[in-house]
């Protein structure tokens, strides 16, 4: 797909849980080939936005298109063709607990391309697992035997199993130690470059934002208040954005980014 073309388009999205309005008139587009970071305070509906895009939550109003096809009120069979083209990493990894990591990776392949022989399936699982940076004995393990960080990597391996064009990541670095988080950032960058991925990334991690995101979308007041590169956002006069990027943590992350940039 051509670079820069919108892959995901959200128009006028409205999500409500009972009386509580989460999104109102929310617009967002994710361009092909970019890593879009989505930030916002706790409870602003970042995960709900992701669930609306991937069709797990039916919005009250609004239009969501992925790869140019509407995702609202989709027939489950038709939606399969779109589902095949994306991968999702949930917050906890969401691995199937009764299957080993390798079997987890093979589930989507078996579902969409039945009839591939087991030997090749094992090879595919092996290189996907290696690609996501797991140790060599991880493939035969069950999710319960893995640490939180390893589970996320295994989740990435499964999300990548069909070579998706679009990757959804829900707080991939939350709960990882700084070294693990940095390695994860690097992994996502590498995968984007090698596989030409478009990445929709929900995060609280300022370091991740500075390190890998091409653009950042800020959710506040029930909609996306701003989208742009970090310098563009910093130029805006919005209270939450200023607090977020100019708070003590925001400044620290910016400094690290600068020194790294100067070193490189």
């Amino acid at each position, binding site marked *: 797909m051509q670079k820069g073309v919108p892959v995901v388009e959200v128009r006028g999205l409205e999500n409500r849980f009972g009386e509580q309005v989460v999104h109102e008139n929310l617009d967002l587009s994710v361009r092909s080939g970019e890593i879009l970071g989505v930030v916002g305070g706790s409870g602003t509906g970042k995960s709900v936005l992701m669930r609306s895009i991937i069709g797990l939550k039916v919005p009250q109003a609004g239009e969501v298109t992925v790869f140019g096809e509407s995702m609202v009120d989709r027939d489950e069979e038709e939606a399969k063709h779109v589902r095949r083209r994306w991968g999702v990493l949930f917050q906890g990894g969401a691995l199937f607990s009764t299957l080993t990591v390798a079997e987890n990776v093979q589930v989507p392949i078996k579902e969409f391309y039945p009839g591939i022989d087991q030997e090749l399936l*094992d*090879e595919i699982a092996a290189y996907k697992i*290696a*690609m996501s940076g797991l140790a060599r004995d991880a493939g*035969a393990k069950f999710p*319960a035997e893995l640490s939180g960080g390893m589970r996320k990597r295994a989740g990435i391996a499964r999300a*990548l199993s069909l*070579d998706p064009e679009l990757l959804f990541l829900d707080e991939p670095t939350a709960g990882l130690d700084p070294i693990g988080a940095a390695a994860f950032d690097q992994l996502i960058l590498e995968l984007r470059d090698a596989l030409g991925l478009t990445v929709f990334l929900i995060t609280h991690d300022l370091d991740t934002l500075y390190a890998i995101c091409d653009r950042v979308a800020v959710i506040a007041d029930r909609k996306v208040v701003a989208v742009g590169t970090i310098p563009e956002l910093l130029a805006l006069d919005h209270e939450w954005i200023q607090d977020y990027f100019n708070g003590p943590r925001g400044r620290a992350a910016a400094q690290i980014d600068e020194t790294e940039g100067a070193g490189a």
Partner: protein
Amino acid sequence: MNEIGGLSHNVEDGRCVLRISGNLTILRVRKLSGQLDEIEAEKLVVDLSGVERMDTVGAWLVHKLERDRGAELVGMTEDQKLLIDHVARADQPMKVRREPETLLYQFVGRVGVATQTALSTLVGLLGFFGAMMMSIWNLFRHPRRFRYNAVVTRFEVVGVHSLGIIGVMSLLVGIVIAQQGAVQLRQFGAEVFTVNLIGRSALKELGVLMTAIMVAGRSGSAFAAQLGSMKLNEEIDAMRTIGVSPMEALVLPRVLATVLMMPLLGFYSAIIAIVGGGFFCWFSLDIPPITFVQRIREVVPMTDLYQTLIKAPVFGMIIAMAGCYQGLQVEGNAEEVGLRTTAAVVQGIFLVIVLDAFFAVFFTEIGWL
């Protein structure tokens, strides 16, 4: 030169040139990997200039040609080269399967694990009982720490909420016993003894046993699931850190409520079963209710009621203890909560039935026939 579906190979200057065209993706690998195996040639050159789309699976196949057969790759774009390099870097020895164990080893292992689990559960339950007794002793010394509210809440959940289901179940069991008994006794012309059958079996055994099974299914499982998810959520650890004993706050109210509710529920169940049997006798055997009640009073000794009232609290204690014990054993993941809940119900019911057998022998020995 021969060509099948976007794959062609011919010999040029003593080298076999393999041209792949079209999409080199997972959609094609099923056929392609077989076709590639069929080509037996030394000095392979793979020409990828005709490839439009390539995914990692395609890159993997190409990489395998390079790795296993020393193929030379030509004609790929910069992006494709990046992809193949990326896949090649991920080609590391990787274990994807567990080594299977021999059948004998598996069998012995399973027997061993099962035996160990059974023994350690028994010891664990005993230890749990001891810990509970100690915390009861502590409560006697500090009665102000007793949690009345928690106990009363459990009364409602364990007792009041199960009245409906136990009532319906007991009514039906009473009717079935009467009906089946009448059919058999009719053969001897002894239909009138149906009343004895209903009265004695319901009050002595069925009422309390059916209630125990229902309470194990309703409350024992709930205890295990509640405490299990609290354990997972680190709530139990938080309690300990704050200085609240989980035994006092969670286990004792549940056990106490079940111990006190079981006799009431068991008696209630027995009475409803007798009422159900009475209805059957009235409608099918033409025994009027007045006669039925009189007969019941004549044939059911008071000791039958004592048996129920003695057994019920013991059963309640076992069910509640099994539930709480299994709940507190949860570790690791949510799957464990399910397994432990099942274990709580199975162990509860099993122990109740085993003890019921002991009780039966015991009561016979002391002359409560």
